[in-house]
């Protein structure tokens, strides 16, 4: 794994007692920690309910790729649980007073950090565990500790840092963003011959659109698709030039503070513009945090606007016949890869399928698609890590590579930027002539503007 870069974050090994403080904070049901993901329950549940049946390992993409003890979900979670037990339970404290043990196995904090990033936080284990233990929550607690130690892999730490400083992962300036938007508008004009504008900072607009910044700066086709949709139905919409990155790296790195405040950026922007509906783009992390944590968990009180994902929004338009699509524009066989955070995290399974079926001539299912999809192997922020590329290609992405080979598809469409990066690399690495796209990219091709 990459060694942390001191310029990003001051490297600090966990001071003695900090692991304990953090674990006790979780155990005491600190509302801040508690409301994020029921972490204390997840840890307790694991301790008191795991039947050691091994079903989770059978279903875990990482264990599938490398079936040994180190990759076993239960074994990984045990690394976190030993800290929880040591510092928060009576017997843990009792035995530690008599036979003190180091916090980490082999007293190796780096190894601990590495292992926490060997979980994709995809929740497939939670879907199959007979008692519902969610190892992704436990790995995330582990990642929080890793973050406290300053051992978060630099690219993720940098992304989180950028989100904080500039409001977007890439650290792009408002000027760069404006340039990109202008470029996309020109592209739209060239392609359609129409003036399809991407309004910015329009106060009082009905819809606030929030794509991940990658959809503006890297893969613009998704944003173009969405702009065409809004244009087609004559929607009153806007984006913000300050909060234009609907992603969330704090969620990935276990940095609860960052997760919560990255989310505040968009809420403030939407409130300030007075929009009634926030439509979020193709980033499952951001949507899950916004909809199921910030909104349902009332982090910032009751929100004065509704939240929906681009998938729900577009699918609804298709259902009600408001969009005209020409599937002939996407003639190749298309399949869909469910992004973990959308499927297993938010229950968004049908909508992307509805969209693809309407926009493509030949849609085929990926085996095991839906809530219980197999992760692409780059989940939990891993696809942003070059240093673990071999692991992603040969271990965590092994099952997905096999599945992609099984389908006859020429195009794999997916709902998340991280999946997109990983699937592209898998296709290249395993020499599969596949095109990887976003879902709204297919709409961008198929939409008929009248």
């Amino acid at each position, binding site marked *: 794994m990459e060694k942390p870069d001191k310029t990003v974050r001051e490297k600090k090994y966990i001071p003695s007692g900090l692991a304990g403080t953090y674990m006790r904070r979780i155990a005491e049901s600190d509302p801040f920690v508690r409301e994020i993901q029921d972490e204390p329950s997840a840890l307790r549940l694991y301790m*008191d309910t795991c039947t050691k049946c091994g079903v989770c390992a059978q279903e875990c993409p990482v*264990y599938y790729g490398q079936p040994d003890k180190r990759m076993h979900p239960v074994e990984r979670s045990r690394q976190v649980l030993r800290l929880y037990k040591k510092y928060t339970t009576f017997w843990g404290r009792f035995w530690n007073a008599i036979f003190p043990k180091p916090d980490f196995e082999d007293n190796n904090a780096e190894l601990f950090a590495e292992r926490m990033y060997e979980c994709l936080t995809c929740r497939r284990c939670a879907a199959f565990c007979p008692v519902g*233990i969610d190892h992704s929550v436990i790995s995330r607690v582990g990642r929080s500790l890793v973050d406290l130690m300053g051992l978060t892999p630099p690219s993720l730490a940098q992304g989180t840092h950028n989100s904080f400083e500039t409001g977007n992962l890439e650290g792009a300036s408002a000027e760069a963003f404006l340039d990109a938007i202008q470029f996309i508008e020109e592209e739209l004009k060239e392609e359609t011959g129409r003036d399809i504008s991407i309004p910015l900072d329009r106060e009082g607009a009905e819809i606030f659109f929030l794509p991940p910044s990658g959809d503006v700066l890297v893969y613009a086709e998704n944003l173009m698709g969405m702009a065409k949709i809004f244009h087609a139905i004559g929607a009153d919409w806007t984006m913000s030039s300050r909060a234009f990155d609907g992603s969330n790296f704090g969620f990935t790195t276990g940095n609860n503070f960052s997760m919560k405040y990255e989310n505040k950026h968009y809420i403030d922007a939407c409130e300030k513009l007075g929009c009634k509906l926030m439509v979020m783009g193709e980033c499952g992390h951001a949507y899950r945090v916004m909809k199921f944590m910030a909104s349902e968990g009332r982090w910032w009180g009751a929100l004065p606007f509704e939240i929906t994902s681009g998938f729900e929004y577009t699918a609804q338009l298709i259902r009600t016949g408001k969009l005209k699509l020409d599937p002939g524009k996407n003639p190749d066989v298309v399949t869909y890869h469910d992004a973990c955070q959308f499927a297993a995290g938010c229950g968004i399974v049908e909508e992307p399928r509805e969209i693809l079926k309407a926009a493509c001539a030949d849609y085929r299912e990926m085996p095991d698609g839906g809530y219980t999809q197999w992760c692409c192997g780059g989940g939990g922020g891993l696809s942003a890590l070059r240093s673990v590329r071999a692991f992603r290609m040969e271990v965590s992405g092994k099952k997905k590579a096999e599945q992609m080979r099984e389908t006859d598809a020429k195009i794999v469409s997916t709902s998340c930027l991280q999946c997109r990066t990983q699937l592209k690399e898998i296709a290249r690495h395993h020499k599969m002539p596949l095109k990887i796209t976003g879902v709204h990219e297919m709409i961008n091709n198929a939409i008929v503007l009248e």
Partner: protein
Amino acid sequence: MNGFEFFVLYRLPYLAVPFYLIMLSVRIWVWMRFYNPALKLLPRARGSVYGVWKQQYRPTIHIFPGSRSQSTEWKRAIKGLVFFAGLYKRDKILWLGSWSLHLGLLLIIVAHVRVILPPDLDPICLYIALIGSGLMTVSGSYLLLRRIIVQRVREITDFRDYLAEIILLSFSATAFLVVLDGGVSSETLRHYVSGLSTGTAAVIEVPHIFFWHMLAAQLLLIAIPFSHLLHLGGIFLSREFLGTSDTFAGEFGSGFSGLEDGQDEKP
């Protein structure tokens, strides 16, 4: 009867039963402090336990959105708890082993109710015990074997887990042998239990295997709080229990079902 047998039959129960009850009570007390979906199935309460209830009714973050009406939650909880429907969908052989083990245990417990039943129901109860202990022994052997043979299960099994399963297996095997040996009459059992509860060692005439059964049963009580067998109670902590996840009931749902009802609002 030698001294050890006397200790197991007439003294150990005074240690094993309170130990089990205390350990379990401590666990329940701890579990109450955490988010405990099982409590949400019960009506909201006011008064001294209000604080605990209030904590349970805070907004919850759901694993897989699903229907959250009270009746659906009940249905799913029953489906999951009684039939292990979720496990059935995942691994049918493991389900068969696990479900018949739990069913066997239930039958053994039911058969013991004869302590308070008229003696003419004895044959039926013994029959139930025979089926229960037989089922449990066969499925317990399968589960233990699976634990030893299957790599991904062996990798996470430690000494305590093996010990607990061996005790569990001894418990069911000795129950089976007790019944095969002709069983213990309900009158003798009554005599034994009332002797224990009044603190008088009412010595009873029982087959030798009954002593081993009692030893295994009491060791089991001691082992439960320290092993994976604790899922017996811990399951109520699982939010899968409520069917907030579709998976526990073995239903993976069919898409996003909306979030209308205010079930999870604070009171």
